[in-house]
């Protein structure tokens, strides 16, 4: 009886080779007919005979050990230090639209600090009638508490792919993203409490960590839909997601969602700080650079099949993927099996919310031929996710951020799936 979890997804090559060697290569059609009875049915299993864990065994539960390959992973060579680095959500192994808290990718610039919430303060100062200081208790007493599902995508998600196919797996090429239900209050309520002066044009959230992250946000966005939150998916923010407080900037690049939020300054012009000059500006081919590229454009990726989640059988299969747009609601996702020559409109399933991950499916029969799978998202503004070549035509190869080009997976006849680029 196999007591080992499935091999980590990054070992699929070895796994497939071993599977083929054991004579359990790709199966055609539906379930195989058996000639001998299945011992998993005919023999009494341990779990059918002995008692399982008692209710007090796991005061805070974890996933089954058979799911222990579903974890955040990092790519060590990407950055000089683990404390200013990134890891990746295992989107190849998830379904639906909500990212489990323990799997939400992390991006820190000075590590994830451990902050005692009783010592945490939020200050509002600058162009306000009355600069204020709040405790966490104050914030949780505010009227107008709200819950919203939003995606948070790192501006650099897919950034390693600007020059070509580099990393094998949507966890690595598209996994700087998560989507959770946030609980908090509208930022507007806090700004109203302090009283904005008429000259207020920008705000600047600042973090309490050792990178003291700062970004400039236009006041219109701050008043429209930004939130100050302490909850994610029904519980407190995780330490690595800003516990006890972070700002939510729906649809805009993840860098702006300042964690461990301790201060919001109101000003009449942007601050041009490091994270909006040296970083998070987009260098174009002519040597000039776009700044304040806040919005994350419409994007999608097929999460299965993908390099970490190959096809294992011919016949009925489900193409599953995610689509999202920082400009609004996803209205349609098309899927191609032939590298973009022909497209079929996929089925959106589950909640379809603005500025949120949206799940799509395409059921299909695989006859074992080679596939070049792509997905193409459209949002309510009429924006159609472009191909990588179309993006490069406008931006060149050096803009690092905001790569929302169409991803191609090559599915080989043995089911193994690769990250490729097609003409």
């Amino acid at each position, binding site marked *: 009886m196999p007591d080992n979890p499935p091999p980590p997804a*990054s070992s699929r090559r070895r796994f497939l080779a071993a599977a083929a060697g054991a004579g359990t290569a790709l199966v055609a059609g539906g379930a195989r007919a058996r000639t001998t009875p299945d011992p998993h049915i005919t023999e009494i299993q341990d779990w059918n005979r002995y008692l399982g864990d008692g209710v007090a065994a796991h005061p805070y539960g974890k996933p089954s050990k058979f799911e222990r390959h579903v974890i955040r992973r*990092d*790519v*060590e*060579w990407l950055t*000089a*230090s683990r404390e200013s680095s990134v890891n990746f959500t295992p989107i190849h192994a998830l379904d639906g639209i909500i990212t489990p808290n323990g799997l939400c990718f992390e991006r820190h*610039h000075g590590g994830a600090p451990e902050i005692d919430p009783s010592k945490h303060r939020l*200050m*509002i*100062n600058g162009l306000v009638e009355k600069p*204020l200081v*709040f405790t966490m208790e104050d914030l949780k007493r*505010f009227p107008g508490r709200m819950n919203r599902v939003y995606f948070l995508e790192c501006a650099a998600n897919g950034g390693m792919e600007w020059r070509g196919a*580099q990393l*094998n*797996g949507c966890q*690595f090429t598209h996994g700087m993203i998560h989507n959770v239900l946030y609980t908090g209050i509208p930022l*507007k*309520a806090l700004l109203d*409490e302090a009283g904005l002066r008429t000259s207020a044009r920008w705000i600047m959230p*600042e973090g309490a960590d*050792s*990178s*003291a992250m*700062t970004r400039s946000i236009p006041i219109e966005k701050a008043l429209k839909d930004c939130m100050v939150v302490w909850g994610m998916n029904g519980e407190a923010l995780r330490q690595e997601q800003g516990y006890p407080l972070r700002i939510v900037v729906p649809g805009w690049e993840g860098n702006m969602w300042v964690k461990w939020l301790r201060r919001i*300054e109101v000003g009449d012009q942007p*601050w*041009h700080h*490091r994270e909006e*000059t*040296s970083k998070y500006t987009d*260098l174009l081919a002519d*040597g*000039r*650079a*776009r700044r*304040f*590229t*806040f919005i994350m*454009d419409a994007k999608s990726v097929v999460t299965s099949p993908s*390099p970490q989640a190959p096809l294992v059988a011919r016949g009925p299969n489900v193409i599953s993927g995610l689509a999202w747009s920082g400009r609004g609601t996803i209205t349609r996702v098309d899927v191609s099996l032939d*590298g*973009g020559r*022909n*497209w079929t409109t996929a089925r959106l399933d589950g909640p379809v919310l603005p500025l949120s991950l949206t799940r799509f499916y395409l059921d299909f029969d695989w006859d074992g031929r080679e596939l*070049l799978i792509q997905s193409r998202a459209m949002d309510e503004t*009429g*924006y*159609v*996710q*472009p191909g990588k070549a*179309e993006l490069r035509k*406008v931006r060149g190869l*050096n803009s690092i951020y905001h790569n929302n080009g169409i991803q191609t997976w*090559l599915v080989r006849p043995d089911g193994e799936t*690769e990250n*490729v*680029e*097609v003409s």
Partner: protein
Amino acid sequence: MSRFRKALLAAFAAALVASPAPAKKAGLGRPALPEEIAAWDIDVRPDGAGLPPGRGSVKQGEALYLARCASCHGEFGEGAGRWPALAGGHGSLRGEAPEKTIGSFWPYPTTAFDYIRRAMPYGDARSLSDDEVYAITAFLLHQNDVVAADFVLSKENFTTVRLPNEAAFYGDDREQAERHFWTQEPCMKNCKPDAKITGRARVIDVTPEDGNKGLKVE
């Protein structure tokens, strides 16, 4: 009270809440004291707003830089290993491998002052005095050929210093430059004659495997 009257009252209350009158204060929080604002509000803008009193010379900055910064950023700001380069890279922005340093890329020198003051040295933030931040900033400006070796940077003369790449930044223009991505009806059938594979990630093969965290790229 009749149900009708109740509904009327409820509607009246809702109308009150929705009125555009000044937002009702919750009465939460307390006024921030000047000392508290001074302790946290240390940010600096390109127009010099927020600069503290103080000054520092290139020469003072060199000694401080060698002691506090050079182990990661290199003796000349060239960057050690994977750590960021702070100087050099001039004229590289249109090339194959742009080197984006303070001198070659950053638009404003105040950004360097602000960032060093709030977040550097890495792992020991907020440990430099304002004069020390002025001095290190002066040294980095000198390493980038922006100021002379005898320069003394201060709150008073800061905004006279300009970086060469200031004019190369412009606002997000995607809705004009990428207008063609807003195509209401994308192609669905026979969109191109052929789809040829032009690149494969497994040829590059840098994806982490178990027990092998991937290539170190220096």
